[in-house]
């Protein structure tokens, strides 16, 4: 018996217009002005998706990986019918529910109870369904005492709990999730992951985007790697994640980005250096590495902290360091624009292999930047055996052996 198909995508392309319009609406005057210089605008398009085709059987969980701007979110939005493709078609069978953010449509003036009904209706639940599952939702959120409190008096943690409790009780046939797990604390993330895997076990179709490659391999058996709007690879998630991280590791671990004044926070450069700050072209295992990134902040930000993370080719987060003890050190950007240089020196623990450096800038309320910025390879040392890279390990710190043979005879 052939498995039923839940999602079918046929040569899907989506084009966005660059320039003023990308930032959103225009005024009439701008449109009239643009019309006059139309010929110069022809190249001002960005293909967020280009000729993407795939299909997903019912009850499969599919992970999407790819760098920022690869078209992952656009693909989710097309699948969820939030936006239309420029050409091609996507078909879904069954109710599709998109969780592109938590608490969509929450209103600060309404109480917790009122917001549950509002949010659930927005996510496609009928009033009767909400009535039936209301107690479960409240239980799940653990906010019985605050049901009649306006949402604006909630803490961020309570807000997240309420939002996720509603989302977790929506039961679409096709679950479309984007980065929801990126917010909140570790416990919240774990809870989200757990619910996501339940979605899978319940036989729902899941499409899942995350920067956390580990959760992709954990939740999904299949993954698609998107880059520049095109499918680079499609297959078992472990294999795809590995290929993605190894991907296009350049010879030199260094990258510069074109400044884009429309972004309020933007990474400008990243590289790998030794512990004295000399850039390395060929980092080797067994030496301390300094991971560096520079970004520009173009608008005022309240207290923010910085984190750097390193994921290996299996998607395991080897490092996830927040500046200062538990993020105690903070920056205040009160005179933008300004550039921030961040350097994290790591003792020699990374085994030879390919890695992905991620940077995060945010506060406990918001994240302003979360991006994988640099792929880099840590090379084996000249005297390492040839199979060094293929060993299945996470860390390789300098160690001291003590093996003594005692003759018993």
């Amino acid at each position, binding site marked *: *018996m052939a498995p*039923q198909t839940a999602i*079918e995508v046929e040569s899907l392309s989506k084009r*966005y217009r660059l320039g003023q*319009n990308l930032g*959103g*609406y*225009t*005024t*009439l005057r701008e*449109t009239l002005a643009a019309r006059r210089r139309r010929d110069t605008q022809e190249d001002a398009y960005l293909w967020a998706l280009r000729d993407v085709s795939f299909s997903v059987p019912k009850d499969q969980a599919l992970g999407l990986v790819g760098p920022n701007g690869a078209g992952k979110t656009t693909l989710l*939005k*097309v*699948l*969820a*019918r*939030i*936006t*239309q*493709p*420029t*050409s*091609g*078609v*996507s*078909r*879904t*069978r*069954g*109710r*599709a529910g*998109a969780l*592109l*953010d938590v608490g*969509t*449509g929450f*209103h600060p*003036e*309404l109480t917790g109870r*009122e917001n549950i*009904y*509002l949010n659930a*209706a*927005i*996510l*496609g639940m*009928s*009033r009767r369904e909400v009535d039936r599952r209301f107690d479960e939702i409240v239980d799940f959120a653990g906010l019985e005492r605050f049901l009649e409190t*306006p949402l604006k008096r909630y803490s961020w943690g309570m807000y997240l709990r309420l939002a996720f409790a509603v989302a977790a009780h929506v039961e679409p*046939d096709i679950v479309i999730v984007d980065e929801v797990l990126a917010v909140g604390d570790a416990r919240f993330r774990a809870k989200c992951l757990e619910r996501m895997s339940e979605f899978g076990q319940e*036989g729902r179709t899941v499409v899942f985007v995350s920067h956390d490659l580990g959760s992709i391999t954990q939740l999904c058996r299949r993954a698609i790697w998107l880059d520049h709007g095109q499918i680079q690879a499609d297959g078992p998630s472990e294999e795809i994640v590995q290929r993605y991280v190894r991907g296009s590791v350049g010879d030199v671990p260094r990258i510069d980005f074109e400044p884009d004044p429309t972004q309020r926070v933007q990474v400008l450069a990243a590289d790998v250096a030794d512990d004295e700050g000399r850039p390395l072209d060929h980092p080797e295992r067994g030496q301390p590495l300094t991971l560096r990134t520079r970004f520009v902040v173009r608008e005022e930000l309240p207290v923010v902290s910085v984190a750097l993370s390193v994921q290996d080719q299996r998607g395991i987060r080897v490092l996830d360091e927040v500046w200062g003890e538990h993020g105690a050190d903070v920056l205040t950007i009160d005179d933008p624009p300004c550039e921030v240089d961040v350097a994290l020196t790591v003792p020699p623990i990374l085994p030879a292999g390919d890695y992905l450096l991620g940077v995060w800038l945010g506060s406990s309320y918001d994240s302003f930047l979360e991006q994988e910025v640099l792929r880099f390879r840590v090379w084996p040392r000249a005297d390492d055996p040839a199979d060094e890279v293929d060993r299945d390990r996470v860390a390789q710190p300098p160690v001291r052996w003590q093996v003594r043979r005692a003759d018993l005879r």
Partner: protein
Amino acid sequence: MTTADERLGSASRNEAPSRLPAWVENGASDRFHPIALVRDLWTYRELARTFAVSTLRVRYKQAAFGVAWAILQPLLAVILFSIVFGRLAGLPTDGIPYPVFNYSAMILWLYVSLGVAAAAQSLVENRDLITKVYFARPVAPFSAALPGLVDLAIAFVVLLGLLVVYDVTPSWAVVFTPLWVLAAVLVVLAAGFPLSALNVRFRDVRLALPLVLQLWLFASPVVYSASLVEGGWKYVYALNPMSTVLDGFRWSIADGPPPGPEALVSAAVVAVGLVVGLVYFARAERSFADVV
């Protein structure tokens, strides 16, 4: 092996009796279906209701006078207009006491102007929803037209009080009252749908609208009587559908003169406006998430 088969078997047993859900397509299409749009609206009626209820709740939260505003707004306007136009200008009112004459039109006018303004902002104000969830987009302007009906109902009770105080007895035409309210709703939708979509692309709408509504008020028989317009001009005047709606409402409630044949012009304007508005909305809808 067997367990896997059993699982498959049981799964298909569960599936077999229920029909497979139909494919839902999202493609690049230049077609637009005003009919499909109305059908979507029906499918999402519960969401429309939830939006409307939430709007009402939010509006009267932390407002000291609460629901009393539904009465205060038209009443204050009427007191002002009664002094300026009723006393000073001495405009004809078709034999209806000026406060009744003015208030009856004012409550319906306020419903329309506030409804159009709310509908025009409905998509732009819900940017988050538009870019992050799918729902039938027409729900937004449609549900913006609903909360005002509650205010209208409250204000209507006060109107009944005024009728008693000024000793005005409605004629048999009172049975048509709901018709004029429905007509007012249609006017709001005919203007609200295209304006909300236009506002997504051009924020000029929000800036220009207060002025346009102000002009519209004086182009409508709210403070004066439509009987000031005579002869063939009546048909030109009826291009503003509010002239017929307000006159008709006064006819039903306060025994004013009945609307003439020029009402057909108004009806045609609303009908054409609705169709054109919905078609424009359905076309623009495709790019809302990208532009808003």
